[in-house]
């Protein structure tokens, strides 16, 4: 390019085109992904899709949008979609409980207030941890790294674009093959899992690979950093599970899938949640001095910038504090309006404990996402609902209002960090992204409420638009409804949470930072995911050893980014296909 083709006007960052496109694509993707989550039971990250849309529409010949402008568009869209994902796993539970007469009628407004409060809290509580996660620990955030590769693909040279395209094509083709069912082979490939037992290994070893390019690519991006996650899964499924069987701790009548389900649901998963909680508390305690040091350097830099008349790069602490107080007021209003005959002090206590728990849960989810791209959001929501029910004397609607807030907030925390990682990699100032997430994520909550209400009413005058035995089974909401019924019967595995929490604190306190979170996450997830991820880590380490670090960064990163984008693209296409009646 010659100098005559250079642009003389100010650099394009936050433009009305980026703002409008981010909001519109965020709303459309939110609607599609809510429908998809009610049908399939899982959410899909929208960052990569929004970045691709921005790449086509903003960076097209006519507008000449910039990398940073597209980063802001993608940040807005992802914030809206993520806020909606938090609602779709919790709000439908209330409709299901109402339809089976567990609860009476309820007003949507306090729940909406809780959702909006959660969206605000998720952003304000995680912002102070940006320096620790992105600048000091340098967590990978695989999707964030993949999105940065898309954003920079125009400037990064044709070789990287080609690698990105190859990865994308392979990821999309593989996902399509899985969806088509052509790969299904009873006993060998079922439910997107390849069995490695070959009829020889016992079922409780759970030897299977999850055939997801996204999961494998996340391991490729993490490399050696992901090994504790892999070893945590190995310890859980190849040491603890066999021990439980051979020590005769389990009902001998349990066998095959039932045995695996029992080990997972009654022991490893609740223990994993406990380890995650303990590890998060210890991580906060251990890293406090280094966060303080980093914040001091920020304060000094802000002071110097102001003295020189320059702009600050971080959102104002006063705005964060105001957001925190405002969000807590919304949570208080939600609990107060929905809890019947509960003393005021208990509502205040629930608001304070809920906010504190939300900070811990946000840290857990953001750190887990940063290390592995996998979010333990449903486990955090489960603990939130149980905690609030205990504090509010078994009030289901009030507990679910808090559950909505916390589910939205933890999702928002993880998304915020993903987007800030992307922003860091493309050189965006964090302030713009933080301000946009802070001011616009509530849109996702409102849209999600409207869509879920409309879908429920679509089932007829008595509702019933989703739930078991309908075309939208809402599996996550059904599972949460079962959990609430278990809490009402006092069947929460408190022993596993507490003992796991104590062990998690020591694990996180070892010199291998992040070990507790990784091991907790490995116990929380099905082993097939951990194995596939671990395979990606080992492949990266092998390739780096043979071809060198520069090759691993220059070739593996764009290929892995492509694999992640390819699977996400097909996931969104599937959501739209289902919306069209497919």
């Amino acid at each position, binding site marked *: *390019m010659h*100098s005559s083709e*250079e*642009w003389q006007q*100010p*650099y*394009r960052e936050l433009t009305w085109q980026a703002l409008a496109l981010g909001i519109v694509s965020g709303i459309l993707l939110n609607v599609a992904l809510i429908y998809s989550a009610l049908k399939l039971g899982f959410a899909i990250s929208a960052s990569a899709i929004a970045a691709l849309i921005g790449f086509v529409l903003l960076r097209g010949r006519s507008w000449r949008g*910039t*990398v*940073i402008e597209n980063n802001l568009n993608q940040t807005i869209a992802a914030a809206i979609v993520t806020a909606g994902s938090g609602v779709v796993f919790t709000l439908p539970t209330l409709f299901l409980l109402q339809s089976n007469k567990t609860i009476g009628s309820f007003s949507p407004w306090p729940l909406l207030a809780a959702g909006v409060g959660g969206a605000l809290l998720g952003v304000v509580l995680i912002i102070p941890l940006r*320096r620790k996660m992105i*600048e*000091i*620990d*340098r967590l990978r955030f695989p999707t964030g790294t993949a999105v940065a590769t898309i954003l920079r693909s*125009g*400037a*990064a*040279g044709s070789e990287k674009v080609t690698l990105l395209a190859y990865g994308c094509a392979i990821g999309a083709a593989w996902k399509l093959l899985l969806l088509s069912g052509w790969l299904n082979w009873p006993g060998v490939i079922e439910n997107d899992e390849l069995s490695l037992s070959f009829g020889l290994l016992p079922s409780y070893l759970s030897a299977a690979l999850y055939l997801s390019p996204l999961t494998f690519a996340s391991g490729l991006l993490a490399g*050696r*950093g992901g090994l504790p996650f892999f070893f945590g899964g190995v*310890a*859980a499924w190849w*040491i*603890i599970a066999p*021990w*439980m069987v051979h020590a005769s*701790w389990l009902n001998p009548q349990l066998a095959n899938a039932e045995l695996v389900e*029992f080990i997972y649901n009654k*022991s490893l998963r609740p*223990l994993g949640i406990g380890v995650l909680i303990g590890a998060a508390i210890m991580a906060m305690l251990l890293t406090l001095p*280094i*966060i*303080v*040091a*980093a914040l*001091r*350097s*920020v304060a000094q830099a802000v002071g110097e910038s102001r003295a020189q008349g320059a702009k600050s790069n971080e959102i104002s602490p006063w705005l964060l504090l105001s957001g925190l107080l405002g969000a807590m007021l919304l949570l208080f209003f939600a609990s107060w309006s929905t809890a019947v005959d509960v003393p005021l002090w208990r509502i205040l206590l629930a608001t304070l404990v809920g906010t504190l728990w939300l900070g811990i849960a946000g840290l857990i989810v953001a750190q887990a996402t940063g290390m592995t791209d996998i979010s333990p959001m449903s486990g955090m929501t489960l603990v939130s609902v149980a905690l609030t029910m205990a504090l509010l004397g078994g009030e289901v609607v009030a507990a679910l209002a808090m559950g909505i807030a916390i589910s939205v907030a933890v999702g928002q925390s993880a998304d915020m960090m993903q987007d800030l990682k992307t922003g*860091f990699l*493309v*050189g965006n100032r964090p302030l713009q992204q933080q301000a946009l997430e802070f001011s616009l994520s509530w849109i996702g909550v409102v849209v999600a409420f409207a869509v879920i209400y409309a879908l429920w009413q679509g089932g007829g005058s008595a509702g019933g638009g989703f739930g078991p035995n309908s075309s939208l089974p809402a599996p996550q909401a059904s599972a949460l409804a079962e959990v609430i019924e278990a809490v009402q019967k006092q069947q929460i*595995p408190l*022993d*596993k949470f507490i*003992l*796991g929490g104590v*062990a998690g604190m*020591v694990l996180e*306190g*070892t*010199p*291998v*930072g*992040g*070990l507790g979170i990784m091991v907790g996450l490995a116990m929380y997830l099905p082993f097939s995911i951990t194995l596939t991820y671990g395979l990606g880590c080992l492949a990266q380490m092998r390739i780096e050893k043979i071809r060198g*670090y*520069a090759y691993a*960064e*220059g070739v593996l990163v764009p290929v892995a980014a492509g694999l992640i984008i390819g699977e996400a693209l097909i996931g969104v296409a599937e959501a739209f296909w289902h919306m069209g009646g497919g």
Partner: protein
Amino acid sequence: MNKQIFAPLGTLLALLLALLAAAKPLAESAQWPDTWQLCLLAVLVAGGLNLLWRAQPQPLWAESISGAEESAAGATVSAEALRECIDALQQLHNAAAAMGLPAILHELEEIHSQWLLPLIHTRSSLSAGMNRLQRGRFLAELAAGELWLNRARSTAGDCYRVETQQAIIQALAQFISVQQLLAASR
């Protein structure tokens, strides 16, 4: 047994035992598994061994696993990479006015892959002798330099010369600040 291995291995084995004891399903109408004492004892042993582990000099792999970055090449490589990064950015800044943006972008990509990535890769060895406060400041300043260099790469790719030159100046200032922090800590 090698003293360096005893504490980490002992900690991890004790924690595995604790998790194993905690995993036992509850008997009918019990609130705790009958192995809870074993679990807490194992956690206590693990805690004690962990203190020993933390007190001994840490091999670089421990930190590299947590941070997903490797630091095997030592402080010499990092210090040299930082010096080269500053020199290369200084030269680019001096020559930028006479260069086309594609050439500037090419230079920035070279600086990023040749000097900045190895510097980040081995940054733990540079901050090994620092206290927590110095380390926090050092890593924050280094990250700020990287952010400005990333911005310069983006703006150069977008064909905005003024913004690119400003970002190069900012990146240079940050890396010089990192070098000064390093000198002050030694």
